[in-house]
């Protein structure tokens, strides 16, 4: 009996937590009138009208492309910097390694607002405001500490004998990394890249402050619906659903791997 109560309780809690997302998706298929109606419409004939409007009127694809290019670019740049660093910390540790790793993590604790003014002025003077390359660089740096830590925890668990053996066979460092290390740790690398994609895709602080339209990603497009003239809830729901769906699905498939990365391997 206690078992049934527990199962019911679990489902109830899960549905409550998930409800805002469900409600958003449902609302996206309503007409504006149904979206405003009181009492709320639970049973309605779904319409794709909002999605059509969003695609036709808001230049959605431009923002979506920015999101893809920026989070993809930031992830790529981040990986190029993080993999060698993690390799160094895991396989060539020195007395400074622990300190360096802790220092990297501490940079993550520096609040973004502390850097906002100088980064804003620097990018303005360099003519980089509202450019994709700027956001790619910023996101890569913002996520770099977490990426290094995450890959480091994966590398640390790889038996050193494998690398020793490769070295005995005369492999150079580059070969060692590409032929031996990357294949063994591709699961960990994939989940690191995934986390970077998720964080970059959802990032809003830098997107809102450093872009206007040219390089603005989806999180900025959604924010533009906060203004009074944007108060069309069905349409807001549709654009939100479109903006969140890819990352939500990615997150569902990668939840197990993410735990390890998000906790720097401290929770198994």
């Amino acid at each position, binding site marked *: 009996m206690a078992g049934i109560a527990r199962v019911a309780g*679990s489902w109830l809690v899960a549905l409550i*937590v998930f409800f805002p997302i469900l409600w958003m998706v449902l609302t996206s298929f309503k007409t504006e009138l149904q979206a405003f109606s009181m009492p709320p419409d639970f049973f309605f004939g779904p319409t794709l009208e909002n999605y059509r409007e969003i695609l036709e009127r808001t230049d959605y694809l431009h923002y979506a492309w920015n999101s893809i290019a920026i989070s993809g670019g930031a992830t790529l740049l981040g990986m190029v910097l993080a993999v*060698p660093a993690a390799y160094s910390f895991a396989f060539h540790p020195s007395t400074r390694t622990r300190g360096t790793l802790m220092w990297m993590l501490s940079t993550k604790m520096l*609040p973004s*607002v502390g850097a906002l003014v100088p980064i804003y002025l620097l990018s303005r003077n360099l003519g980089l405001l509202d450019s994709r390359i700027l956001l790619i660089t910023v996101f890569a740096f913002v996520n770099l500490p977490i990426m290094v830590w995450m890959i480091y925890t994966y590398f640390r668990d790889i038996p050193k004998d494998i690398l020793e053996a490769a070295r005995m066979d005369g492999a150079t460092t580059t070969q060692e990394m590409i032929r031996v290390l990357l294949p063994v740790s591709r699961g960990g690398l994939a989940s690191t890249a995934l986390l970077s994609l998720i964080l970059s895709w959802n990032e809003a602080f830098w997107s809102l402050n450093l872009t206007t339209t040219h390089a603005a990603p989806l999180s900025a497009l959604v924010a533009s619906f906060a203004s009074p003239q944007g108060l069309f809830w069905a349409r807001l729901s549709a654009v939100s659903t479109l*903006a969140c769906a890819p990352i939500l699905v990615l997150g569902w498939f990668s939840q197990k791997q993410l*735990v390890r990365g998000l906790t720097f391997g*401290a929770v198994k």
Partner: protein
Amino acid sequence: MSFSSSPPRRVGVLTASPAVIMLFAWMIVPLVMTLYFSTQYYNLLYPGRTAFVGLENFAYFFTYPSFWTSVFNTLLLVGSVLVITVVGGVLISVLVDARFPGQGIVRILLISPFFIMPTVSALVWKNLLMNPVSGLFAWVSQLFGLTPINWFADWPLLSIILIVAWEWLPFAILIFVTALQSMNQEQKEAAQMDGATPVAIFRYLTVPHLARPIAVVVMVETIFLLNIFAEIFTTTGGGPGDATTNVPFLIFTQALLEFDVGAASAGGLFAVLLANVVAYFLIRLIGKSLDA
């Protein structure tokens, strides 16, 4: 071990350098510039008129009417969300820990909010749920014969706290559920045989087992919660008055709305200091367990 011989050490330095140098630049360049600007009169509206003003910007920022409110709001926001997500996360994780049909789906539903972008969750909560006229919460309270709450007008900071807690609860659940899987089941069964109540098992076995995951959740969440911005930007704009202005938002208004680079820089340094104080305690608390 060949790992300590000289060529690999050079390899170690070479491979670590790009990330370390870039990150150092990303940290030090803004910091030095902020330090410099914080001593200058510098308003973007009058770019020609800059002058050294000593500590005036700090005096201005610290005596700004919204300053202490923003510090208080920041700490209240971080603290409340930590309490809600850790307590709620532990309870929910224990609830869904046992095997049952549909467990996989339940977990996916529970962690989903973590993947929703902050601008979306803020707007969906504000307009679809918390709207006093046509939001779902208003309808539910009317079902119970209650007057709908005007969330963002009467309880602005609480509204923000609820939204942010909803975003971060899944993270805590994700971590705790994973940690519970590694719990020693035999120990638990032995305790049950000895007649330990579920509450005793929770208190003396589960909670100690979760100590480290809780520490990790507190640390990771604090890093992100000190930076909460988008939720405030898209819902209240810091208001009404300064009811939902936190330190990041206050600096944002100084810098990009009032164009006062000097004051914003002084505020930025304060934010760095605040984060460092928090980080110092966190690292002392948790640093060791991360190194395992």
